[in-house]
């Protein structure tokens, strides 16, 4: 059931991207809605494929689940903020950590923040939720049985 949900989310995200690309073919060019399709669709495919990879036995444990949700919220949120906030990158630009506000939200929100929690989430969940000694032994046993 969980896998089906993840695949559905993945296909839905792909459909959003397809919609964005389709809108770009309009004679007048891509309307603003197209960027929203790509922003949310891209965040969706990355979070969905992450959840798909982290799921085991049709279940997603709390840490990988939180990582996938947080990835979607961070990426989609940063892109949404950049699309929603008024442009202010000229002479009077307010700089945040060295960049104009909208740019800082995208560069730090998408380019840095996930790096602060994803590797930690992976390491924290590895021993119990990703690959145990028992898992390895199960794979080796299956290989031996196949060879026999």
């Amino acid at each position, binding site marked *: 059931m969980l896998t089906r949900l993840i695949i559905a989310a993945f296909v839905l995200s792909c459909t959003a991207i397809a919609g964005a690309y389709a809108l*770009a073919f309009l004679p007048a060019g891509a309307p603003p809605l197209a960027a929203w399709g790509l922003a949310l669709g891209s965040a969706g495919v*990355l979070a969905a*494929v992450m959840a798909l*990879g982290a799921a085991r036995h049709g279940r997603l444990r709390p840490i990988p689940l939180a990582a996938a949700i947080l990835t979607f919220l961070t990426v989609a949120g940063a892109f949404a903020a950049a699309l929603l906030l008024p442009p202010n990158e000229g002479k009077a630009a307010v*700089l945040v950590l060295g960049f104009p506000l909208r740019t800082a939200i995208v560069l730090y929100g998408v380019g840095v923040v996930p790096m602060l929690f994803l590797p930690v989430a992976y390491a924290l969940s590895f021993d119990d939720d990703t*690959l145990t000694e028992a898992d390895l032994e199960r*794979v080796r046993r299956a290989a031996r049985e*196949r060879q026999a």
Partner: protein
Amino acid sequence: MRAWLLLQAGAPAMRHPVILAIAVGYFLVVGAIGVWAARRTRNARDFFVAGQGIGIVPLAIAAMASTLSGFAFIGGPGLVYSVGTGAVFLVLSASITNTLGAWVLAKRMRLLGEARGLITIPDAIAARFRSPAAQGLSAVAMLVAIVGYMATNFLALGLVIDAMFGTGLSLGVWLAMLVTLSYTVTGGILAGVYTDLFEGLVKTVASVTVFYFVLQAGGGMAGISRAITAVDATFLGPWGKLPALSALSLFFVFGLGSLGQPHIAHKYYMLKDPRRLKWYPMLMSLAMSLTLLLYVGVGLAMRAKVASGALPPLVRADDATPAFVLAFTPSAVAGLVFAGVIAAGMSTVNSFMNIGAAALTHDLPRAFGRRVGNELRWGRIWTLVLSLVAVVVAQFSGTLVAFLGIFGYGLFASTLVPALAIGLNWQGATREGAVASIATGLTLTLMLETLAYFRVFSLPAGVTVSGLSLLLSLLVFFAVSWFTRARAASQLDSDIRVVMEV
């Protein structure tokens, strides 16, 4: 490739004795690693997957070195100089893709190596779907992209060698091929991984050092931004000079497409202890973020210098890195950067030599139900043949090389992401879906890129061939798998099912 041509502009200054000494020292270390690895390469398993004996630190740094080709040091900063923050969207997803790759691919690939002793990417696809057709088709797609990548990098390396040693372009290309070939053909991927480790360290040190000089020359990041925003209101906008759709399209292709890059995925087979994967995302993210500082910093610093009138505009954007290091850093740092550029090209070529040889020695014969008797010997022979073909293409085809180099990433993504990355994690995927998606990605990429190259047809702004091909191959994969879903369970061997479940 256009990026590299511009290195010639800095040729005289690049012949500074300190720069040359560092380059020569670099080649000597690479040669020594090649000799060491050659003595330890005794069979095809050693040659193609380093005997499955690589530690997590060398693996992570080698993966970073292979991921970031010369583009990260030359073309990338040039693109940042041209289109501002829009160019950062090529690498923005690196904050996610390292962990993503570990969750989606690393464990499954390594366990497939454990269960079946697999050595290539098409091997994994064949085992997952019990399909020689999928193995053969994915091998063909990889070979098409590999020859282009290799030719582009040989040409680029030849230009750098010519600029540094005054050899002339033709001899430079041959020298680049011979140096890379010498350690790849003897030491196989073992030599490749350890030269990648050395090259990765060179690139990281060079990037961090140059970034220090970027901040110093520009008055910090705020100083750089102030200089740029004073004259240009869009350059430092969230999408830079690109339309939002184009920037986001780059994010999609380089984010999801990272799961289809065979020179990275192939390295997962080589890890000695699969339980050490725990630290892979952390190591890879650290190495990648440090090495990308140069990519982001140099282009912005050069644009700030031009905006403030301190420097005249660059004639060619790709001069950004050579111009910056020659003007604002000591000769030793410039030498380190140019060694890093050579390192980047060689580490990428070496990986492609190896997986290309594996496709010819191992995958294509198996796709036709045959097996090569001595895979080590034939692996070496095919490495040589592929290198010769790539050099000939690089020498005689001019703009074709640039064309071949452009679509490599997209071709890998559209042909391998569905069957490999999704296929290894979704038991509902079918053989028919895998074959259809690989065929779709291969056909669409070749057709659309060729039509665009000959200006017969062009896509609207914001839609890229690689993005469209990746998207359509994914949709075909899901659609065909859904229509043939009744066959999914019967196409899965019991040991592969275990690998997918754990």
